[in-house]
């Protein structure tokens, strides 16, 4: 069998006494696109953040390309380097220009020459359709542009896995599609993706599998067809009814 890109087995996590993740099992094949939805507080973000170790899980196993995330060894750092992340709040570096935001990783982490890093940065700015914004500061851009810069910043590290934590939730409605378009293009290029979002149109378009989470558990894990037409659990059905109402 092919090596899984991401594998979670029996993962549990608590914030103090509150259990945020309960017995999470999830296997993601290379190139697979997973869309995760669920009510707020259901543990979606926490699960994603455990995968790139912004949070530490307390029991169970997480493997990236077969490497288990324990300790701070070289192999763990290598595995994490394959993961890019896009945040709800963009988290661009406000004191650096767009180009500098993109070049920081390649220069400081990958040890690339500035000219080479700039070429990479400009290539990915093209990919997210804002090459003309290279010399501006993040504060001068719209939310949609900032989020596309954030996507480009992750791509500059040439990851094989991209995690998106509600990438359009902080955006004005008219800017959501420009970000989703970029993500759809990215999906077409064979990237392994986990996307936490409530944009169900996007989900139908790109998801190989839909995950529904509630109270720290994965309640539903199925292809988009059956997921939308005949969800197995009542909770998932209720949730979809509510967000698809409008």
């Amino acid at each position: 069998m092919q090596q899984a890109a991401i594998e979670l087995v029996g993962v549990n996590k608590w914030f103090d006494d509150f259990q945020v993740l309960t017995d999470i099992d999830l296997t993601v094949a290379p190139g697979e696109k997973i869309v995760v939805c669920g009510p707020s507080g259901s543990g979606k973000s926490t699960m994603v953040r455990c995968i790139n170790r912004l949070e530490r899980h307390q029991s169970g196993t997480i493997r990236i390309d077969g490497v288990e995330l324990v300790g701070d060894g070289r192999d763990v750092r290598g595995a994490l380097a394959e993961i890019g992340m896009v945040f709800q709040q963009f988290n661009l570096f406000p004191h650096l220009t767009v180009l500098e935001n993109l070049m920081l990783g390649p220069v400081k982490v990958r040890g690339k020459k500035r000219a080479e890093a700039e070429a990479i940065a400009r290539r990915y700015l093209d990919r997210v359709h804002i090459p003309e914004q290279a010399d501006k500061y993040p504060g001068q851009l719209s939310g949609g542009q900032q989020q596309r810069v954030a996507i480009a910043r992750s791509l500059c590290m040439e990851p094989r896995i991209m995690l998106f934590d509600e990438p359009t939730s902080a955006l004005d409605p008219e800017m959501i599609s420009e970000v989703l378009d970029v993500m759809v293009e990215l999906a077409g290029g064979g990237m392994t993706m986990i996307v936490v979002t409530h944009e169900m149109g996007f989900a139908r378009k790109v998801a190989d599998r839909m995950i529904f989470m509630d109270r720290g558990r994965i309640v539903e894990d199925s292809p988009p067809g059956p997921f939308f037409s005949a969800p197995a659990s009542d909770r998932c059905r209720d949730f979809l009814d509510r967000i698809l109402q409008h």
Partner: protein
Amino acid sequence: MYRLITAAGLLLLLSGCSSSANWGWYVIDPGTERGWINIRFLLSGFTNTILLSVIAAVLSMALGLMVALPGLSPSRGWRWVNRIYVEFIRSIPLLPMLFWVFYGLPVVLKSVGIKVSIDPFWGAIITLALADSAFTAEIYRAGIESIAKGQREAAQTIGLNRHQTMRYVILPQAIRRILPPLANQFIYIVKMSAFASVIGMQELTRRANELVVTEYRPLELYSFLILEYLVLVLVISQGVRWLERRMKVNER
């Protein structure tokens, strides 16, 4: 409102000068030879007040940073080192600390084999820097902690290590929030430097004190002294304002 208070204060001062024998501004009347000599004597304290303050402030900034860094460590032990230092140092009133450094520290140093005498100049500087470092340490810590968690996380996800994150992401942003309060803190050092007069340092306050002893005109001389500090602090606070404006422009 401010104008009203200033006007009332000036009126009080002027009426006092003109009407009553209780005032004796002649001691600092630049029109007379004696007054002029006195003024020059008083003003000559500026050099040491400024020297003390500037050197102490620079040392305090360096020391404060060294104290702040363990306070930001994920290790509880290092954070304790920071807490103990800050709580201990800032609970000591300046005057006792000054006495301890000036009279006590040489004894301690001698007992471990270091023979140095501490003159009033360095005694005052060490004390001021030490006392102020607890506050500058807190300014650094607050400034660095004020940078949103998301910045650190974003840096982590593109692979920067802790040191690189601090150097390229956190500090460049934090410095804009740290510099204005740090400059503000300089005003406190200037005012605290008056305590150096007690151990014989010839700065503004000492000069005024010495003149009071010979001229018996405390009201006029201390009024002049207060004006000297007022001018000094106003100049610095203009500088702070300018710095704050500059930092704001750069913030995007």
